[in-house]
């Protein structure tokens, strides 16, 4: 559970430092007029960005806990490591490209270059689907090589971790599909900007998660 605790420690430290800055040296019992200096908004950004940040914290917590469980269960003597298929390296490269493509689309949306939105979204979506298909093929390769899900717990973890990551990816694809449909039905860059920006953050996040997961899987 050390990993989870470190993660939690970081979250708590962030929250508490921020709250200290907000709340120390205030005297709540003193009445003050609600002038422009007294704001009811804590973070100078829009609500959706805040909500995504909170959600990413929850998602990180889920992955941290899975990895903690992985490292605890690994200690048992029956652990037989998986020989990861080489295909995973290719999938990783595809996911990196998907992230780059999304970032490129985001830059287009921010600077209002309408023409780059459609190709950008198309390429990022296609690369992501390619990644997901690649993961499924990797599953089949493992299965064909006799690494059945219930045969050893290392196999179970492999399927489980990749599946959870893939499901998060699919959730992202739902938002991707929504902004893609809007762009194809003529929405301008400004109206889909926030949605694309947040998706880009999510894609980068899932890329980072994948790299960590892949690292854990490879090193054990």
């Amino acid at each position, binding site marked *: 559970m050390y990993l989870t605790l470190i993660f939690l420690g970081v979250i708590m430290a962030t929250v508490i430092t921020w709250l200290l800055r907000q709340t120390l040296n205030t005297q*709540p019992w003193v009445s003050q007029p*609600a002038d422009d200096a007294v704001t*009811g908004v804590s973070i100078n950004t829009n609500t959706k960005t805040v909500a995504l940040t909170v959600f990413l914290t929850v998602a990180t917590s889920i992955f941290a806990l899975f990895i903690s469980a992985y490292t605890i*269960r690994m200690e048992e003597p*029956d652990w037989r490591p998986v020989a990861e298929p080489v295909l995973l390296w290719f999938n990783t490269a595809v996911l990196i490209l998907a992230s780059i493509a999304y970032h490129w689309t985001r830059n287009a949306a921010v600077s209002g270059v309408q023409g780059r939105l459609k190709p950008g979204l198309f390429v990022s979506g296609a690369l992501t689907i390619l990644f997901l298909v690649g993961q499924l093929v990797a599953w089949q390769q493992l299965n064909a090589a006799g690494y059945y899900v219930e045969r050893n717990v290392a196999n179970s973890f492999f399927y*489980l971790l990749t599946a959870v990551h893939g499901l998060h990816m699919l959730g992202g694809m739902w938002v991707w599909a929504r902004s893609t449909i809007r762009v194809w039905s003529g929405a301008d860059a400004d109206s889909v900007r926030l949605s694309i920006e947040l998706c880009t953050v999510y894609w980068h996040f899932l890329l980072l998660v994948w790299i960590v997961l892949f690292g854990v899987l490879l090193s054990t």
Partner: protein
Amino acid sequence: MAYVSIADRDHEIEHHDPETFITKYIWSQDHKVIAIQYGGLAILIGLVGMIMSSMFRLQLGFPDTFAFINPENYYQLVTIHGMIMVIYLLTALFLGGFGNYLIPLMCGSRDMVFPFMNMLSVWVYAVSVIILVVSFFVPGGATGAGWTLYPPQAISPGTPGTDWGILLMLISLAVFIVAFTMGGLNYVTTVLQARCKGMTLMRMPLSVWAIFVATILGLLAFPALLVAAIMMMLDRTLETSFFMPAILQAGEVSNYSGGSPVLFQHLFWFFGHPEVYIVALPAFGLVSDILSTHARKNIFGYRMMVWAILAIGGLSFIVWAHHMYVSGMNPYFGFFFATTTLIIAVPTAIKVYNWVLTLWQGNIHLRAPMLFAIGFIFTFTHGGLSGLFLGNVTIDLPLSDTYFVVAHFHMVMGVSPVLVVFGAIYHWYPKMTGRMYNETMAKWHFWLTFLGTYSLYLPMHYVGFLGLPRRYFSMGDTAFMPESAVTLNTSMSISALIIAATQVLFLYNIIVSLKKGEKAGPNPWKATSLEWQTPSPPKHGNWGHSLPEVHRWAYDYSVPGQEEDYIPQTVPATDVPVGRDHGVDH
């Protein structure tokens, strides 16, 4: 930073006045309706949980008398009773119910920032409740694994409900977590981003602070339960060995090998302990506001109260293994977790002192909400003190799995939060419905419940000390149990039945008062926080044309030298009428 009111600025928040019955009451996106849906459903399933407890208390108090309770369904009743009360009643009621109702009103927002997601949250919660109820009617019935669902017995033959019951239980929990996450994202974002002008963090009522921090705890802790549930589902369906060790099942070697049951315990209690505070913190917050309002005094040590909430929230994540002292872990871990457990008593004690000091020399009005709030201080202190016993490894070892533990956690996270639930429902009932409840009936409800729970749980500590183990269907002929303990068991069961029957008073009161109660007016308690400055019940969008502006904290009661004994948060310093002196020396 220049102020821009989020609710006015953000185009993301949509306000359509609901028109039809269905959009107004069924698929409603109004936080107040959603709050009542959440609360109503939670109370409904909570009643089911209470009836279950009455049924197994019948068996415990009068063994071999009732043929309809056999060992199998006894375990099912105990298990589902625990699950319902902790998760489907208290978590849903405090966060989904009170969180939804109070956060936007107390922060001065028009609604939650994502109303559609809020609506999804309550309906997904409804689905999770339905799955839970359905689990009683599938082949083999609901799971009887105990509410902690420990493997290997939770999914091994011999335990009731290993066919479908346990699967539905795990699925229901996963669905609940999805619902909670959707709600939780809303509560956190609304508190952070949608407060009205002048509502700084340190002017928020403690209810909002407590629900806010409890939601953060939930968002970080529920994933552990989700992870454990998913892995156990795989162990059950695909015969993976995450938790399941190699064992003989019905004389045959199972397909499992090498799994770690203790890993499940770690994950479960990593969720389970913060869960105690997910339930307790909102109770702390609500009770602070009730005490302050009905004692006509500002809450003692507001800043300390806020920091105590944060400290309890932070500490709650590093005490989980005190539930596992008997799991055979490294004694140094036990030492560490005993220390953190005892440290958590410090901020908790600060809160208790501050509540008592809030009452000190207050102008106390012993109305029903106040009685429940004061009752809570008693039950919570008792439950907390027995927690100090159990937090120490050496004392916990002999007491573990006895009725002492059952008595402890029922006092601290059963009775105490439930008293606050009742107090808070009576306190905000006029706001939610526009009518007053019947005060006499509410007071009877309080005394019967309060004294009833004491007559139930005080003896339970004693039989726990004697060594009566929990979870047993019947005591049998055990030499160490004196006759008097058996009699006590009967008396505890009678108390439990009386408490259960008393709740009819509560239901009757809140249902009949909907029509027959006196008109309450906007602010019957002369309270200061924002929700009392709206009409009762508040309209859709809460604040009419313009949002409120806040000029002070929520605890300006009996301010010296002022005419009235309360100043609402919306009143600027220049508009406070100066009048009679409240006894301040000049």
